[in-house]
């Protein structure tokens, strides 16, 4: 009967009918989804409010043309340079016999631990030569190229090397095989990274303001300072969102109908590493140069200002209270974002259906929205609808939740998938009640993942600047705002301790991301950046 067992029907079972989701859960999910769609709704409503003549007026001002042109060329330059640095670095680390590849991997991830505005501070306090288009492109690319580097490393190390072997057997050379086989296979990862860089560049405020390079985002804050939430700021926010949509569209277009490269199951076939041979010192030199530019310059300048600041007055009390406030906000944001992600992820994992996936998808657009737009939306809405909430901590925390909910949802979702319902079935058949099964099986399985999600969001909240500047109640001082008030007033020495604290705060998340990119099983690198 061997042939009967060999030629077996597929083992997939009849679709187990999904039960109807509990109404409470759906209501919670709808509430969270509606909240995270608020900023987008704000943009739509305010664009409808704005008359066409007024809009045209605003759009044709020469100042606007400047901002538009600056933003466009920064996007192009920054994305291109980030992709070159990221893909080049990833190929060197993963696919060549570069000495100390593990160490270089850490060095190449490390810039993520330096918030872009701290990097900008390091550069501008060293040389004023970076106050130009090329300076801005260089500084933001040095900050954001890891967003391309990490997913590319992940894709390269998971790429099944047999495709290259096949290419070689078909008579393709090394470079041709890279261009025709490897590059297409990793292109979704590279494009995804490029999209992230683009979105971050659109939302970047601190670094560009320090470098004196005006873009739409810095323009919004300038307008906000002048006229609060006047039509000009709203109009700029609208254009900024349009930019984001164009980026998303471009990425989808470039990715095309090709399937996302989920290549093999990572059987552990390590690809042959190309020998650098006599070119080794050249490439090491290039990496050293990159490390000096991305880490050396900001670190050296930080150390210099720390030493100098020490001799003057160290704001001990300010630093202490800023750390306390930042920790409080970070934990509140992390816990709330994770709690908000729970019903969404639970519905998506356990009750798959049109309604629940709709709710889940409603969360992700916030990922593409710059912090400035979210902040502006919350300011406007709180003033118009509940003025008593304007400039209060709850609104600030809601802002954090909206901004980082996509991140939390991705993490919580993959965590919940670790506890499939069959485990609860087994537990109940063994005498557990539903709540007993949750306590003894589900909770122990998902707790570590939930804690990781809280930590990841908390770290992001701790180093967030743009939305915090707009939403923080007067008198609330966080590490980021305290740093900012000093750095933007050219008190570089006084800003240094805060910069150091911000870097220390970013190290754990960077370490996690760097490890996830090279770990063989999880593909979290893209989702959680």
């Amino acid at each position, binding site marked *: 009967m061997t*042939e009967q067992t060999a030629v077996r029907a597929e083992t997939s079972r*009849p679709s187990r*009918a999904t039960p109807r989701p509990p109404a409470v859960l759906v209501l919670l999910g709808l509430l969270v989804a509606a909240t995270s769609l608020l900023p987008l709704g704000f943009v739509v409503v305010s664009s409808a409010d704005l008359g066409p003549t007024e809009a045209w007026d605003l759009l044709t001002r020469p100042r606007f043309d400047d901002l538009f042109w600056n933003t466009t060329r920064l996007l192009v330059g920054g994305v291109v340079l980030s992709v070159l640095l990221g893909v080049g670095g990833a190929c060197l680390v993963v696919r060549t016999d570069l000495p100390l590849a593990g160490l270089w991997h850490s060095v190449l991830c490390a810039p993520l631990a330096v918030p872009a505005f701290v990097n900008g501070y390091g550069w501008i306090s060293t040389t004023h030569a970076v106050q130009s288009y090329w300076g801005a492109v260089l500084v933001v690319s040095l900050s954001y190229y890891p967003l391309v580097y990490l997913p590319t490393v992940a894709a390269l190390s998971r790429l099944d090397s047999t495709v290259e072997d096949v290419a070689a057997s078909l008579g393709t050379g090394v470079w041709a095989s890279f261009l025709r086989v490897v590059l297409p296979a990793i292109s979704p990862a590279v494009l995804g990274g490029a999209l992230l860089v683009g979105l971050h560049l659109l939302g970047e405020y601190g670094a560009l303001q320090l470098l004196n390079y005006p873009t739409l985002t810095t323009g919004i804050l300038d307008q906000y300072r002048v006229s609060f939430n006047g039509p000009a700021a709203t109009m700029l926010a609208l254009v900024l969102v349009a930019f984001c949509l164009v980026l998303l569209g471009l990425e989808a277009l470039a990715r095309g109908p090709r399937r996302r490269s989920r290549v093999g199951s990572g059987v552990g076939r390590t690809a042959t590493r190309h020998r650098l041979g006599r070119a080794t010192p050249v490439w090491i030199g290039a990496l050293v140069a990159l490390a000096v530019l991305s880490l050396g310059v900001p670190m050296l300048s930080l150390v210099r200002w720390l030493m100098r600041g020490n001799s003057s007055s160290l704001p001990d009390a300010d630093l202490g209270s800023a750390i306390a406030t930042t920790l409080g906000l970070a934990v509140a944001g992390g816990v709330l974002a994770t709690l908000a992600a729970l019903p969404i992820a639970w519905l998506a994992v356990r009750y798959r259906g049109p309604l629940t996936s709709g709710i889940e998808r409603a969360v992700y657009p916030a990922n593409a929205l710059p912090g400035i737009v979210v902040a502006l939306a919350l300011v406007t809405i709180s003033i118009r609808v509940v003025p008593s909430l304007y400039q209060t901590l709850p609104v600030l925390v809601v802002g954090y939740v909206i901004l980082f909910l996509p991140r939390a949802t991705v993490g919580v979702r993959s965590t919940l998938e670790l506890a499939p319902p069959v485990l609860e079935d087994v537990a*109940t058949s063994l*005498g557990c009640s539903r709540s007993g099964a949750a306590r003894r099986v589900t909770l122990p399985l998902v707790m570590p993942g939930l804690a990781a999600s809280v930590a990841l969001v908390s770290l992001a909240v701790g180093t967030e600047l743009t939305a915090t500047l707009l939403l923080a109640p007067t008198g609330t001082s966080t590490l980021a705002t305290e740093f900012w008030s000093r750095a933007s007033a050219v008190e570089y020495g006084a800003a240094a301790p805060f910069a150091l604290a911000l870097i220390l705060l970013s190290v754990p998340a960077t370490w996690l991301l760097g490890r996830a990119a090279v770990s063989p099983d999880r593909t979290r690198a893209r989702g959680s950046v």
Partner: protein
Amino acid sequence: MSSRPTVGLSVSGLTKGFDAVRVLDGVDLVVPGGLTAVLGASGCGKSTLLRLLAGFLEPDAGTIRLGDRVVAGAGRPVPPRRRRIGYVPQEGALFPHLDVSGNIAFGLRSARRGEAGRRRVEEMLDLVELPRAAAIRQPHELSGGQQQRVALARALAPAPDVVLLDEPFSSLDASLREETGRAVARALSVSGATAVLVTHDQAEALSLADQVAVMAQGRFLQVATPREIYLNPASPEVASFVGHAVLLPAAAAAGSATSVLGTVRVRGTRDGEVLLAVRPEQVAVTAKDEAGSLVADVVEVSFFGHDATVRARVAGADDLIELTARVPAADVPPPGSQVGVRVVGEVLAFRQEGR
């Protein structure tokens, strides 16, 4: 353990639908004890039946009895945790955060953890033929077959009346499947628990079970011993599903039937229009010009080592009929060649309905 009284299981008129689709359509089944296999293609409703027995689903109609207790169909259904059932799902589904002994002891009353629990874990490991040292292993360190044995040990540890196994061996590769299946059947019979095994693998069902229930489209086609199912299938569907018989129309009279394959002896004395069920082992491959054989074109040969199956085409009345023959490994005809085929032995005949 085997001294425990056997608790039977009976199901009557069991009906379950999801939305508009009726998955189970008034199913009756009596399991007196031992191991019963529910055999059916995927999507026939067998997993739904198992989930109803376990209590994970509630039936739309019908009753389920475990021993003398009605657990569904009269008043509130008894929840899974009070049914005294053990459940072994497809992939084993061991709790990934607990080691082997933690998994096996999961269903023991808290009073029985500790020393008594440890002894029970060892007893269960012995029962499923795993070394006692495996108690401290983590689930991911075990092979697929070992995971299934631990899953069975976990289900058996609280001494359930009935054990339900949902395609427990389908994720194992062929060589492990048989060995694990035998070990599981032995453990079940020693434990004395009544067992229901759901499978789409007929070799598994026929070789392991005391009773086989063949299922299609939410109904049982036949419930009988493996031998009975194979030798006396109740319908042409059962014959073609179990044993891969080829169905041929024929005219029967006085113990033999005439079809395109010539006249063959049939079992039973049905006269008139019948449907013959010809199994691969009933088709003999002979030389092309042998007397009494039909000429056939060899379409495909699958060589297995111990034997081979040959698919061959014979010219029928107005179309070609494809037959499958099992031949010894020593003389396998090459594909594309012509051979003779002949039906040997008695052939099953079913009265053709609607004619």
